[in-house]
Structures are given as structure tokens and as C-alpha cells.
């Protein structure tokens, strides 16, 4: 009796360890994106032509074309697997793009091909959402305050600048990607691409004004490989 209990407990432990082993499927690529040199100083945005937005800020917000953090860290960089991973079906969750305080939140929105994109306006002013794709269809829609979110999707992978013609300082980017292995760096510049099955991958880092860089990495088992990117900052 006692013996069988011990055996069963042993089985239970084995089963539990098997479950925890199954958790991290594949390896991880992580690292940090930094810059060298002096990036251009981001200018404050003059929103005086749109008082309803200007009053939302005690100090004027600055442009977001280059976002930096302590230790030369570079934020708002899209790091993604550009080759080596199969194309994936779009997730059922929508990517959310919000217009608030006459700015785009987030400034860079990464999502997958054919994934639903929901755009909403939380401002007291009309915006027009005008993405400027080269490969996908170009559309341009008005969104006055209080109107329902716009639902769209893109069927080709592409980096798409987005602007509002009414408020010329408003500028954002869509990163339409083929698989779910992507990250947009925060101000720390750190990123981590998890759940990569063993194989050879091309990792690409894209920054809207510095362009893109690629590195090759080979993953075997559930190891974590470090890949760092260093962009040359443009002083203007």
C-alpha cells in the first residue's frame, strides 16, 4: 500500500517535470539595440494650431523619429525574423492603433499580414488616417471624434508610413510582418524573440530613419542566443 503510494507520487513528479520541460519550445534570440554617434535632437512639436490637443501637454511633446534611452539604447526598433521561419496565419486578436493628443499610440505598430488592425480616435478633433503603402492598397479615411473604430488589414508584408494630413506633425509606422517572431524595442533597447524551433534564421532590425540591419543566427535546442544591433546615428 505504502509502496504503491510512493510509486504514484514518483510518477506524478515525473509527469510534472515533463510538463515544465515542454514549456519553452525551442530557443530564444535576445539582445539589445544601441546607437553610436550623436542622434539628432528631437524637436518639440508645435500643436498650437490644434488647441484641443495642445492643452493636453504641460510641456510640448517631442518628435519620435528617434527614441533613445540610457546607455545609448535605441527604442522603437522593429526586430523580427525576416527569413528562416515559415509564414504564419494571422492571430485572432486585433492590433490597436490609437490617436490621442494628436499623436499615434504606439508610434510604431507591428502586426501580422491579414491581422485585424483597429484604429480609434480618442481626440476632440477630426483625424484622417492616411497610410502610404507601396505594395498594399492605399486608402485614406476620415475619423471625426466619437466615431467607431476603423477596421482594416494588409495582405502584404511591408513597412508603411502613416500620416494625418490635417495635423502634419502626426507621423507613425505600421510594420506588417509575415510571422509572430517580432518585437518593438522599448527605451531600454532590449528585445527577445522566443519559441524559435531549431534552425537558421535571419534577424532584421528596422529603425525608421536609420534603415535596417540583418544578422544570421543558428538555434539548436532550447538555447538562448544573443544578437546585438548597433545603428550609426545621423546627426541631422
Amino acid at each position, binding site marked *: 500500500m505504502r509502496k504503491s503510494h510512493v510509486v504514484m507520487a514518483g510518477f506524478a513528479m515525473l509527469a510534472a517535470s515533463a510538463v515544465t520541460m515542454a514549456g519553452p519550445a525551442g530557443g530564444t534570440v535576445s539582445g539589445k539595440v544601441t546607437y553610436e554617434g550623436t542622434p539628432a535632437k528631437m524637436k518639440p512639436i508645435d500643436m498650437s494650431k490644434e488647441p484641443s490637443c495642445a492643452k493636453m501637454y504641460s510641456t510640448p511633446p517631442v518628435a519620435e523619429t528617434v527614441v533613445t534611452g540610457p546607455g545609448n539604447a535605441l527604442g522603437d526598433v522593429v526586430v523580427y525574423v525576416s527569413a528562416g521561419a515559415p509564414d504564419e496565419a494571422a492571430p485572432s486578436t486585433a492590433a490597436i492603433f490609437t490617436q490621442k493628443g494628436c499623436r499615434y499610440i504606439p508610434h510604431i505598430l507591428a502586426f501580422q499580414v491579414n491581422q485585424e488592425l483597429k484604429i480609434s480616435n480618442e481626440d476632440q478633433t477630426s483625424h484622417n488616417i492616411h497610410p502610404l503603402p*507601396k505594395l498594399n*492598397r*492605399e486608402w485614406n*479615411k*476620415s475619423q471625426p471624434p466619437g466615431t467607431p473604430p476603423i477596421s482594416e488589414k494588409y495582405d502584404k508584408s511591408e513597412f508603411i508610413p502613416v500620416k494625418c*494630413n*490635417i*495635423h*502634419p506633425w502626426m507621423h507613425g509606422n505600421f510594420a506588417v510582418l509575415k510571422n509572430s517572431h517580432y518585437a518593438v524595442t522599448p527605451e531600454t533597447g532590449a528585445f527577445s524573440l522566443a519559441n524559435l524551433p531549431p534552425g537558421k534564421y535571419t534577424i532584421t532590425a528596422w529603425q525608421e530613419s536609420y534603415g535596417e540591419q540583418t544578422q544570421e543566427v543558428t538555434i539548436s535546442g532550447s538555447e538562448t542566443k544573443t544578437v546585438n544591433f548597433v545603428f550609426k546615428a545621423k546627426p541631422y
Partner: protein
Amino acid sequence: MRNINISKICLSLAAALLLVGIASAQDSHIKEPNVTGHADAGKPLYYRYCWGCHGARGDGNGENAPYVTPTPRNFVQATFKCRSTPTGTLPQDQDLYNTLVRGFNFTNMPSWAALTAQNRADLVAFIKTFSPRWKTEKPGDPIPIPAEPKLTIESMKHGGELFQKLECWKCHGQEGRGDGPSASTLTDSNDQPIRPFNFTTSNRSKCGRTNQDLYRIFMTGVDGTPMPSFADVVKPEDAWDLVHYLRTLQYNSPSPELALWMSTKEGHDIVEAKKVYNTNTGSGINP
């Protein structure tokens, strides 16, 4: 020898039939007037009349293109300004045909009314061969335009409120002169400066001059320019009110709307106060 000749003839006949078969996949179907255009017939017309600006490859980079503003249409991208279809979709053949008849006011694109209807239909068919989009996508469904409601003072006043609420004035200006606060910053999708329509100088907008055309323009938007589509945010009856109001901004273009507006003291005073009625006015010519 004779046998060989016959087989040669047979072969070339078969090839010709095959060619006809391929060409028929690149037709255009115009309802008004009822003509069918063929790309192979449009090709020589294109390389006679169009390629100087639109380019040998249809990419808008013709020999004259550097001197033309706004830049000639890029048929490879297949983004078209004047459509009856929703923003981001391909236009109907009829839309392209109508554009050829009308031309684009205030641009280098003339009216091609001097060609025959068959010529224009053939050109539409040929223009569609430049972009692969025509093979993979269908044109959008035309945005329905309900019958125009009766013109009333209230309709025009409500249209004026919408002009404020939808912030049309941000670009087009409070008086519709195309001089709103954002006007000077506008660029088209080719990064070229572009000016909003100045209602005071003309009633001939790029995509047509009838009330239905005006309705269609702000419902479909003008793709490739800053003018967005309002189809998802404006109700049809509100859109008609806005059309009626826009006519009252066209001080120098007689219309039933302007006449009714001027017959009221309020409307008359507004127009008179601007001191532009029956004058050569506006902040400049339209782009």
C-alpha cells in the same frame, strides 16, 4: 511544299486565335455609352497620345513628367483619384472612361472627348494591363448615391454645421478658399505639394461638377491625395446637406443652391460681407 504551307497557315491561324483569346481577358466594359474596349487596340493609341507623360511603362515617368504638376498618374500603382468605388479599391471601367472624357481641370491632363468612344474604351482596357492588381483584385462596388432630397434653407444650414463639425475648413478654409490652417503643409502620395480645392473660384472640381459628383468625391475620397473618404462617418442625408452648402461657397458659379441662399437675408449678408460675389476672387488658382 504545299502541305507545309497549309500547316503553316493553320499554325498562324491558331496563334492568332490564341492571341485574341488572351486579349479578350484584357477588355473594358463601359455601360454609358455601351462599348467594349480591347487592350490590343488601345496600345497604339496609348503610345500615340499618353506615353509622353505617363511613360512607356505606364509608371508616370514619361519624357514630359518632370515638367508636369501634379505628376502624371502611375498606372502600375493603380491608385486613382476619381472613382465611384470605396477608398483603396480599384475603380470601375466606367470611372476611368469618364475621366478620359472629362480630363482633370487645373492639371495637364486634357479631356479626350475628341477621340471616339471606342478609342477611349480601348485605352481604358490597355491602361489596366500595367498593374498586376487588375488580375488579382476586382474593382470595388460603387458607393450608392440615394436620390437627392429637396433643396431647403435648413438643408444648407445643416450642411454648414457639418462643414464645421467634420473640420473641412482645416484644409479648405472657413470660406472654402482652400486656405485652411493645414493647407500649406499638404502633400500628395508622391510627396508633391498639393492645394485643397478652392470653391470660390470654380465649380469644376477634378472629379466632376454635378451635385452627384460632389457627393461622390467626399464619400469615396480622392485616393493619392490628402482628401479622405467620409463614407463610414457621414450619413447619406447629411452628405446631401453638405453638397448643398458647398454650392453656397461657389459665389461665382450660379446654382439653384446659391440662388436660394442669396434669397434669404442671412445668406445674402454672409455672401455680401465677404465682398467676393461677382468678383474675380479666391486665394489663387486651383492646383
